[in-house]
């Protein structure tokens, strides 16, 4: 009995310390955006609102997860000479799947995101994980790594989007919170307490994402001393 248990432990799918680290590392200590500074392009572009950021985050998690699993499953069959191209084909296929599905079931988001969905192909996070991890590890570990990196990217995306949407448009997830018309929960035209408030239009524009991400990187480092570069 004891023997079989050991065998199971070595071969079956398990979730121990190592696996947990694979999943949680990219969320904090090795976050793709704030630590590795990858995938900035799309983080600048799609973070004007929570809705778009959510769709983008889900799409990247999906692509990252399945690209990692597929590449890892094929890693012994993929010829070394063309491995990059094969990885690109896998990513491009998954992204096209995402695009087709969005166009059929979430047309509004598709209209707003269309260009950036295509640009997931060039998102360095996905390709980076394939080359650095999936080519050398088993599918299960790769799945965890892909999931972790996708979520790590998504969390930052949502944080930036929340800040930009609220301070730029006075909205959160499309719900109107504060602004100069009766449609908002706090109408700055009538409220005596918030009459001074004005949405910051800069937050809607791309440069603000730069500031917000930079501030997030700083905050992340201040909060997590492991990231401070002592050299």
């Amino acid at each position: 009995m004891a023997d079989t248990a050991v065998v199971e432990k070595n071969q079956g799918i398990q979730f121990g310390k190592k696996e947990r680290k694979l999943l949680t590392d990219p969320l904090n200590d090795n976050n793709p955006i704030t630590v590795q500074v990858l995938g900035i392009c799309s983080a600048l572009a799609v973070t004007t609102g929570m809705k778009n950021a959510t769709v983008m985050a889900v799409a990247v998690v999906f692509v990252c997860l399945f690209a990692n699993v597929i590449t890892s499953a094929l890693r012994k069959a993929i010829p070394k000479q063309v491995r990059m191209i094969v990885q690109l084909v896998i990513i491009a296929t998954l992204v096209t799947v995402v695009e087709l599905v969005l166009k059929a079931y979430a047309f509004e988001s598709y209209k707003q995101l269309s260009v950036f969905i295509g640009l997931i192909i060039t998102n360095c996070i996905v390709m980076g994980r394939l080359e650095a991890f999936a080519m050398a590890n088993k599918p299960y570990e790769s799945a965890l790594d892909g999931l972790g990196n996708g979520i790590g990217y998504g969390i930052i995306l949502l944080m930036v989007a929340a800040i930009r949407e609220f301070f730029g448009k006075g909205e959160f997830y499309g719900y109107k919170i504060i602004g100069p018309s009766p449609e908002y929960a706090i109408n700055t035209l009538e409220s005596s307490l918030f009459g001074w408030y004005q949405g910051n239009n800069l937050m809607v524009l791309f440069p603000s994402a730069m500031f917000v991400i930079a501030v997030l990187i700083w905050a992340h480092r201040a909060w997590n001393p492991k990231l401070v570069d002592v050299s």
Partner: protein
Amino acid sequence: MRSTSSVLLFVLTLTSIVALILAFLQNGLKSKHDFNEAMYSKKATIAAVANHLDVEDFSKISEAEVTEIFDKQIKQMVLKSDGTVATPEELQDAGVRGGLAENLDLKKENKKSVEERYLPLYEFTKSDGNKYYIVYARGKGLWDEIWGNIALESDVNTIAGVSFDHKAETPGLGAEIKDNKAWVRQFIGKKLYDNDGTFRAIDVKKGGAKDPYHEVDAISGATITGDGITDMLLEDLVAYEPYLKTIKG
């Protein structure tokens, strides 16, 4: 290192599988894609008369409601620039599905000279019996194309509402032509013709509108997009003139 032939075989197999998967998916979802595209442009068309519809909140309009409005309150036709209505047969020959205005390839039409264009016209009958005419214009913004539906009241002069859209204008600047409802509302009540009957259209005016009938305020930071709208209204709506004159009588 593997031999070239085995690499080739691997790549060929992989691409064939990928191609098959994508082809099946594309085919399976095609009807849904077409439906969504059609619904999107129908919604944009009736957005021009959003204030005159029997729905409470246009932003929450359902697909069934859009279809119903199109079935019951909209009469669509395709015009030629000499003012005649194109026959369904003629349109079928030109490759327009069902001979319907909603199936016109407006991007392609816009590339033709004004004289050769097919022009979509939607006649909307409000529940109180008033008629509105929705016309279409297309032009260039800062980065790419912009287009819009313009609803005219039954005098075919006063604007009852507009809805603009764009392909790639900057969010917060040029994209405001679609997103900024207060800006779009400015067009209501403006007139295409001045008192002498000359075609003036609407000027998107930098520095603030002065003429109460032919000018609207520009969006700050979106001068070129605004100028694009001025130009497209001036150039494209003229093509409807011969037909609109027959309505005016």
